[in-house]
């Protein structure tokens, strides 16, 4: 248990597109990580609370509703306010390139858009959490 990377896979806002999040949750679990899938319609507050409660090493935010530039920065802000800045935050979904750049500047460790293989995400998280 001590060695397992703990990842919260989260769906913020009203977005209901959960195909990708579920695949990633399963892939991470198959790769030996402890996965907590929040389910849909989570507020940023709920996501951060879950991450704290679950002692998460990483949060994977999945968002395909176009609301990412409001919700992701809010999640990052709440993580800072709660003093849990060492949590690795990655984002996936329909994120245009310049928004991805912006999110990375705000502290998102990696952005994985359409077509990103799950192996890439697994390897990235292993590397980012160990660091």
């Amino acid at each position, binding site marked *: 248990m001590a060695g397992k990377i703990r990842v919260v896979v989260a769906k913020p806002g*009203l977005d209901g597109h959960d195909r990708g999040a579920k695949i990633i949750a399963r892939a991470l679990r198959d790769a030996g990580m402890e996965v907590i899938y929040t389910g849909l319609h989570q507020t940023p507050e709920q996501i951060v609370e879950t991450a704290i409660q679950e002692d998460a090493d990483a949060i994977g935010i999945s968002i395909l509703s176009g609301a990412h530039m*409001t919700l992701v920065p809010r999640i990052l802000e709440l993580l800072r306010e709660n003093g849990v800045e060492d949590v690795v935050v990655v984002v996936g979904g329909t994120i245009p390139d310049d928004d991805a750049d912006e999110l990375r500047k705000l502290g998102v460790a990696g952005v994985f858009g*359409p077509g990103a293989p799950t192996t890439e995400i697994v390897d990235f998280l292993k590397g980012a959490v160990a660091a």
Partner: protein
Amino acid sequence: MATTDRDEQTGGAEEWRRRYESTPEREGELFSTISGLENEPLSSPGDVDLDYERDLGWPGAYPFTRGVYPSMYRGRLWTMRQFAGFGTAAETNERFRYLLEHGQTGLSTAFDMPTLMGYDSDHARSLGEVGREGVAIDSLADMETLFDGIPLGEVSTSMTINGPAAMLLAFYACVGEEQGVPLERLRGTVQTDILKEYIAQKEWIFPPEPSMRLVVDMIEWCSERLPLMHPVSISGYHIREAGSNAAQELAFTLADGFAYVEACLERGLDVDSFAPRLSFFFNAHLDFFEEIAKYRAARRIWARQMRERYGARDPRSWLMRFHTQTAGVSLTAQQPEVNLIRTAIEALAAVLGGTQSLHTNSFDEALALPTEHAVRLALRTQQVIAHETGVVNSIDPLGGSYYLEQLTNELERQAYDYFLRIEELGGVITAIEQNFMQREIAEASFRYQSEVERGERVIVGVNRYEQEDEQPIEILRIDPALERKQIERVQAVRERRDAGAAEAALARLKDDAAHGDRNLMEPIMAASRAYVTMGEMCDALREVWGTWRETPVF
């Protein structure tokens, strides 16, 4: 090898089989359909059990396998109906008019997430979401702007809305009233298909039981007052997008359809009074023949069940009409222009499958809503198919293809298997509550993804023929200022309206909702006219019925 060629060819299946097997198949390629159906290299007469009159019949007649109308596209082309919506009603009104000017023949409305989930734009949960995924509609005032300059007596409109479908239908009917168009002349479709929300699209509000009551209220009201409206569009598109295979898309959609039929029968409605107005909505994915087979199987299954199981006597109750959308999930962010090709092939499958209405995706939609340029190209795709390819000249031109008929039969068989399993579980709603469909979808979705990641299932530009240093394309940006603008709009509506009338209408709706034997459409119409907002109506119903929360499986 050369020796074989000089052999005397006596012909016959066995010789073909021997010669086929002496040639190695291409390595590392899957010859199964996208759904995982193993394909034999050849279909021939002996492979298909086909009785022409029993299984195919004639266009416009039972069992409708070859098409729902006698003349199909020779009499009338499918409706070119591009899904559109973003920002506030004013922006979408402009896009609607652009599309109509460029040859679109029917409207289709995309609403934003807050509207889809039953929240007004100024609700806390709407923050950052207003106008992003579709148009923000909070009240009748927004609907008036949305259809400004668009005569509802002349255009048919589809509305992709489910949880708050009743409210949006009422808004539309009220705009018609204001334009002087009587209810019985309003044409269009409301998606309303709440069962597939629990299964796939996830845009629910209330629990299944009261949601079904609302659906039946809409079907009943439309059967009496809006005979040209399709009150439901029983959908497989979203089930497929969520990751199901073709057989699951077919089976779960039809099962949902039967569940609505049964709910209406339970209400005491005569099957022929509502069944002719039920409509469907399917995906057009990339496996060309599998999709065409799916549509034909769908028509045949629906016809058989409606006549044999539900005792419908009116032939219009047996015929399944459907809209199709090309598969959003097949679009790539990498080398996006290639999506034009994918969409064209998917659209062709839908046409060869006999669709009544078609939306073609724009090439830039993997990352954003479409630009004008992209959506014009999507429309042109349909126009080229309609006018330049000749596929519309012969009805069901692929009918009789051994491969196609074999696939049609196989998908039909798999669908019936699923009907049995769902029945054994206790019906559609119980199956949903037990996460049956959701699990099937998650499995199929993971299987497909694994094939892609192993490189067995090729996606051009993604796991083969990749390109470094791609130039980013221009995409549509939603102006964040529109959210503030819309918030001000809805607050102004609440300020302006007759507070007493709005309050009374809302109270009446709440009271009627608590009584299962009252049709809610008239109270919703009254509330709409009083400019009660959609969010307010949904909140009232949330108080009476509660909200749904899923237990997710992955």
